[in-house]
């Protein structure tokens, strides 16, 4: 038993959960799958006085596809549920590509997609997907719902725009463009472990093979997930070919200043980010015309 003592709450309804957070605010943490919170408490990096376990709150485990193709994922949808979801495979191909990179199956069966976003670990995949797709976060409290744009959500290491009394109840990913292709790739010491650096990329490519939109997001490269807009600008309007991809990769390596730690130096991570950009964009381009 490694976590410090806490008062445990297991609300049966969302209203009950929100009331608990209104009451205990800064002293409380929301527990969904627990795959980040439990080890954090075990390492005593987090010591909430109250833990609000939303695991029994009904209706939060739905994956909803809107009539326009936008996909909304509820707070209790587990990674493995998203991994196996035909709706995700069809309407959110980037999420489907991402899921196999998220940890190991025995963690994916418990950990939640939305919980990973709320936890905002810079080395996790989903925050980068949020940035690359410009997803919208829905935060709920006793004051009501509010939406938070992707670019406003991640504020720092494990820090987001969520207030202490809010639950991230769902995340909505905009409809996937018909002519978009994407790729996810990363380097980790062991597949499924936290990546040294990871790449999440999306390209929209016109019939003439010209890139009309590009999103390049990275994990493990800063204190939050980040996009490299200067490299995206290189791709915008350029032909989807190796030359463009190499130019973008060079900009990525130059722009990013990943932190140095025992697993890899800043210089190595910069190099990896460029290499992964080139590989990822080539892999995405191989999908042009392949699906939809």
């Amino acid at each position: 038993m490694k976590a410090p003592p806490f008062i445990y709450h297991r609300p049966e309804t969302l209203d009950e959960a929100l009331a608990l957070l209104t009451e205990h605010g800064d002293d409380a943490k929301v527990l969904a799958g627990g795959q980040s919170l439990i080890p954090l408490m075990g390492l005593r990096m987090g010591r909430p006085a109250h833990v609000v376990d939303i695991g029994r709150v009904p209706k939060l485990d739905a994956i909803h596809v809107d009539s326009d193709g936008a996909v909304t994922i509820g707070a209790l949808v587990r990674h493995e549920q998203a991994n196996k979801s035909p709706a995700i495979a069809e309407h959110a191909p980037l999420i489907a590509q991402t899921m196999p990179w998220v940890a190991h199956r025995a963690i994916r069966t418990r950990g939640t997609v939305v919980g990973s976003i709320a936890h905002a670990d810079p080395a996790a995949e989903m925050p980068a997907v949020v940035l690359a797709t410009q997803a919208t976060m829905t935060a709920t409290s006793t004051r009501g719902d509010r939406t938070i744009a992707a670019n406003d959500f991640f504020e720092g290491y494990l820090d987001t725009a969520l207030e202490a009394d809010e639950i991230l109840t769902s995340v909505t990913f905009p409809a996937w463009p018909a002519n978009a292709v994407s790729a996810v790739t990363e380097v980790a010491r062991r597949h499924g472990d936290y990546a040294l650096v990871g790449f999440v990329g999306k390209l929209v490519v016109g019939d003439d093979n010209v890139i009309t939109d590009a999103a390049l997001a990275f994990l493990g490269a800063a204190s939050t997930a980040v996009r490299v807009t200067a490299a995206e600008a290189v791709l915008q309007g350029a032909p989807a070919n190796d030359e463009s991809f190499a130019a973008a990769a060079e900009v990525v390596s130059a722009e990013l200043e990943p932190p140095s730690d025992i697993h890899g130096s800043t210089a190595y991570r910069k190099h990896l980010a460029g290499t992964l950009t080139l590989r990822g964009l080539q892999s995405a381009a191989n999908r042009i015309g392949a699906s939809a």
Partner: protein
Amino acid sequence: MTDTTSNTDTPRLQAERDAGGSIVDLSVTVNGTHHQVSVEARRPLSDVIREDIGLTGTHLGCEHGVCGACTVLIDGEPARSCLMLGAQAEGTEITTIEGLAGPDGELHPIQQAMMEAHGFQCAFCAPGFLMSAVALLDENPDPTTAEIREELSGNLCRCTGYQSIVAGVETAVRVMKESGK
């Protein structure tokens, strides 16, 4: 059903209350047997299984989700028992390594195959590997070597270098296909 009243009065639980921690009454089914225990809310499922229920076949290596030794099945799906509060397992059906062999002691084909392939050396990691392998074969009775490696990638072994473990699972796949189990 066990009377939990006396249990909640143990010095351990009293100390937890004094320290500001909750006690939860937990009801779980482990390997087909129903258990009712009162434990600290912060107690991980792994400790509940080993210390409160007394099934010590589930091993604890790192206790923070890296090594996979504590992997059990929760309602048929693999999970790290060290990364779950016991309280989160309320009402679930858990299968541990002790639940693999038949009631007469006949080994599960994966256990038998692993023995025949000399899959493990010290075998501290064995319960986690076996539960992960069972989860894989339940879902996909005919996995490729790559799929076996992918599924077992969440488990660490410090002895073997993994070759013999993968060979053991491959043997189990073959035996189970031949016997139609």
